[in-house]
């Protein structure tokens, strides 16, 4: 049995007990003989019962107030329903109570009619008068008997038995009538009992019609009255409530005797008179009692009625609470369920406790919750799938709302834009920023394209950062609702830096190859022709002309040599050297290159920071040496000539793109790379040197890319630049490295 059923059963039991108690109490007022003894107990039990109800109601009120304070769901509805139910129950009951009290008062008053009262008093008086007449007659009759007793001859009682019991009594002999004489006298006068007492009250003789051995002796008061010479007559309710007339008169013992006796006689009334007298007596008594209890009866009835009213009110209020809670419980559950759904809890399943409309509502709610939960699970599943897909995409994806709020920013997009933070979802697109990159041109470009309002758009945007330049192709789509309003945008970012660079490199290679081909061919005939011209005509010309010719031909030959060098550089740039790779020790190769320059740059101090046990790299040694040669030469060119400076060379093993790479950093303390050249420093013909061809770093980049490596250049914060080279390492052990001496050639 659950608590609610137990509570309901207790209250029902209490109500039934109270009701029974009130009924009994009402009975007790109307018939004291029946329940009168229990009246106080019933009153107290009713009072305590109502008090118990009040305590229960008080608890309910306290709980309701607490629920209202905490703004619990359904509390206000319960309060409203309780107030309505209570008013509906209390108002009619109170009105009924008021009228009932008035009717009660009038009803009780109507019992006491003056005429009835007078009639009863008159009937009582009539009875008394009637009985008085009879009693006077009986007194005369008894006095006559007393006279007769003194006239008749009497016997002397030879033995005074009373003297044995009480020595104070006189021991004189008594003159007494014979029993036959007394019996005759009693029967002739229709007396029930006739007693003869002496002066001391000692029984001398008696005669009884009923045969009672113990006669009904008169009390001392009556005897005293007789002693004083006054006869006594009185109406006594002697036995069984029947009336008798008691008469006591003084009589002489005998003529010429001074002593006296007391003659005591009892006369019964006839049954008819007894019944009538009893009827008059009881009616009068009841009327007098009711008359005396008039106000108290009103009070008692009012008290009972008040208890009934209180009982009705407290049970009504309790029932109001119970009904209100029962009715509001499903609504409260629904409110709680709705709140839970609002908080995202779709597991709430409400109990269906009835099969009425509210039960149907609860069932519908449960079905709706289940469907929402299922749909949400599906959405979550799809979202997880989409997130996984987006996280695996190499393309960056940005999704914006119509208010430019970021809803999706996948890892690739963060990587492409150089964004470290991952919680940009929910932020404005305008706040998108990167620590390393300048995203302002990107943002402006995207906002401009969005503003144009096209459904699909595409643009290439360059993002510059400290050490690189990224070329991004941005493809945008405007998402529209079924009503045609813009609900958001999806921007897909593609990193085309490598493609663009590749296309650029391919174009430059083609240019270099054609230049080498077209220029190199005529150079040799030009050089040969110039040398022949100089040889043939130098001696034939005079001194002045000969010097001019020698100077001109030297210039031609020198310029041809320069052009040859340049053409060779183009050839190097255009040529592919992926063949002839062998395992090489990076440290030895780099140190060998450095040693070539140490003697020509004494002011520069080379500092090494090299990890031990570095793996070997599989490269074309000649080409990689060319890379190191160019980089070290650049670092030396950037370093000040006359001031001592350091070039720090570090080689370490790093994990890059999930594979081991040898990372070489060459750090100088020169003036660094001009900001405007940072994005294009690896392009051909881009140089900050006055005499540079602009092909050195382009060749370095090309060679490293042919070895699946990379090169980057960035300025230091203080002064100087750092060039970074990464070459994939080779895990092949035991290969014999190429002798360093061979590499120097």
């Amino acid at each position, binding site marked *: 049995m659950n608590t609610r059923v137990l509570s309901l059963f207790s209250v029902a039991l209490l109500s039934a007990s109270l009701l029974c108690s009130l009924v009994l109490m009402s009975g*007790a*007022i109307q018939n*004291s003989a029946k*329940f*009168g*003894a229990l*009246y*106080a107990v019933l*009153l*107290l039990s009713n*009072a305590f019962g109502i008090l118990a109800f009040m305590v229960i109601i008080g608890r309910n009120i306290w709980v309701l107030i607490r629920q209202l304070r905490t703004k619990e769901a359904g509390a206000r509805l319960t309060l409203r329903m309780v107030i309505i139910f209570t008013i509906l129950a209390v108002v009619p009951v109170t009105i009924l109570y*008021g*009228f009932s*009290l*008035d009717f009660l*008062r009038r009803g009780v008053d109507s019992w006491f009619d003056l005429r009835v009262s007078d009639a009863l008093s008159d009937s*009582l008086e009539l*009875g*008394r008068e009637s*009985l008085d007449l009879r009693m006077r007659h009986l007194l005369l009759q008894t006095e006559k008997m007393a006279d007769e007793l003194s006239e008749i001859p009497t016997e002397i009682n030879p033995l005074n038995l009373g003297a044995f019991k009480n020595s104070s009594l006189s021991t004189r002999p008594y003159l007494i009538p014979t029993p036959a004489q007394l019996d005759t006298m009693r029967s002739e006068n229709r007396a029930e009992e006739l007693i003869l007492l002496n002066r001391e009250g000692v029984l001398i003789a008696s005669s009884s019609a009923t045969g009672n051995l113990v006669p009904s002796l008169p*009390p001392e*008061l009556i005897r005293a009255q007789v002693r004083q010479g006054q006869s006594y007559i*009185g*109406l*006594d*309710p*002697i036995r069984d409530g029947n*009336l008798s007339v008691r008469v006591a008169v003084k009589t002489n013992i005998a003529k010429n005797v001074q002593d006296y006796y007391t003659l005591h006689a009892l006369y019964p009334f006839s049954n008819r008179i007894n019944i009538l*007298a009893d009827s*008059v*007596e009881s009616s*009068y*008594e*009841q009327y*007098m*009692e009711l*008359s*005396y*209890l008039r106000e*108290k*009866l*009103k*009070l*008692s009835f*009012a*008290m009972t009625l*008040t*208890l009934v009213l209180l009982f009705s009110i407290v049970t009504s209020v309790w029932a109001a609470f119970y009904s209100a809670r029962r009715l509001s419980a499903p609504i409260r559950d629904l409110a709680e369920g709705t709140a839970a759904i609002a908080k995202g809890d779709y597991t709430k399943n409400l109990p269906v406790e009835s099969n009425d409309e509210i039960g149907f509502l609860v069932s519908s709610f449960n079905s709706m919750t289940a469907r929402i939960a299922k749909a949400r699970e599906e959405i979550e599943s799809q979202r997880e799938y989409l997130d996984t897909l987006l996280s695996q995409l190499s393309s960056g994806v940005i999704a914006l709302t119509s208010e430019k709020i970021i809803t999706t920013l996948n890892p690739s997009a963060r990587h492409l834009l150089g964004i470290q933070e991952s919680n940009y979802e929910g932020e404005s697109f305008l706040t998108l920023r990167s620590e390393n990159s300048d995203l302002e041109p990107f943002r402006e470009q995207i906002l401009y394209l969005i503003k144009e309002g096209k459904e699909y758009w595409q643009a290439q945007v360059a993002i510059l950062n400290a050490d690189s330049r990224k070329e991004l192709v941005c493809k945008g789509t405007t998402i529209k609702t079924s009503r045609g309003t813009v609900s958001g945008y999806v921007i897909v970012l593609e990193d085309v830096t490598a493609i663009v660079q590749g296309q650029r490199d391919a174009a430059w290679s083609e240019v270099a190859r054609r230049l080498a081909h077209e220029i190199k061919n005529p150079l040799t005939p030009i050089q040969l022709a110039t040398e022949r011209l100089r040889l043939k005509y130098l001696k034939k010309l005079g001194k002045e002309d000969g010097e001019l010719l020698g100077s001109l031909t030297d210039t031609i030959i020198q310029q041809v040599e320069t052009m040859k060098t340049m053409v060779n550089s183009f050839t190097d740039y255009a040529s592919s050297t992926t063949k002839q790779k062998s395992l090489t020790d990076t440290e030895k190769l780099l140190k060998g290159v450095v040693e070539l320059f140490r003697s020509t740059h004494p002011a520069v101090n080379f500092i090494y920071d090299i990890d031990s046990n570095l793996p070997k790299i599989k490269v074309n040694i000649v080409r990689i040496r060319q890379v190191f040669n160019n980089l070290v030469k650049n670092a030396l060119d950037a370093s000040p000539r006359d001031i001592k400076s350091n070039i720090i060379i570090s080689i370490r093993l790093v994990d890059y793109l999930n594979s081991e790479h040898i990372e070489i950093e060459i750090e100088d303390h020169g003036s660094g790379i001009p900001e405007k050249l940072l994005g294009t420093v690896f392009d051909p013909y881009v140089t900050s040197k006055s005499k540079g061809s602009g092909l050195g770093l382009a060749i370095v980049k090309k060679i490293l890319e042919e070895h699946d490596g990379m090169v980057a250049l960035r300025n230091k914060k203080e002064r100087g630049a750092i060039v970074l080279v990464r070459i994939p390492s080779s895990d092949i052990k035991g290969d014999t490295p190429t002798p360093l001496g061979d590499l120097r050639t």
Partner: protein
Amino acid sequence: MSRSASKLTFASTLCFCCLFLTGKLFADGIELTELEYKVSNKVLLAAAKAELKFNSDVLAAVQSGIPLYFDLHIKVMQPRPYIWNKELYRVKYTFSFRKHALSNQFVITNLVTGQRGVYRTIELAIDNLGEVDYLAVLDVKELSKTSDLFMEMLFELDIASLPAPMIPMAYISRSWHISSSWLRKKLNL
């Protein structure tokens, strides 16, 4: 609602409240002055004299025909050290006191023995109510032979036997709490 009804409601509520707060706080109106005993035919008999002083409310009720019932409680006790006394025997005699309207006399009846007394005046009746003649208490054979026994007697008006409408007021009114205190007499049997 009429003014009288309002008064009744107020009075009933007041009574209702007072009912919890009062009890038999006022034991007054009867004083037991004498307590006698004797053994007759191996039966312990007890007699007492009491002075009864009834107030006007009680007298008016009797004159109005309301029967009153008085209880005479007699206990035979055995004292015990440290703890309360042991009650060996207890007997109760009830006397009714009422007015006989037709004869305009007052009747006192011992409801246990059936003995009845009729008196012309209420004062005479009250005086005789206080004269309790020897009444049987118990057979002395039921008592153990100990010299420490004593008898206690109390005479009181039985409020619960009043007509029901009078009971609540009687409980909370001092006028109706008519009772003697316990009168003790050592028994030498």
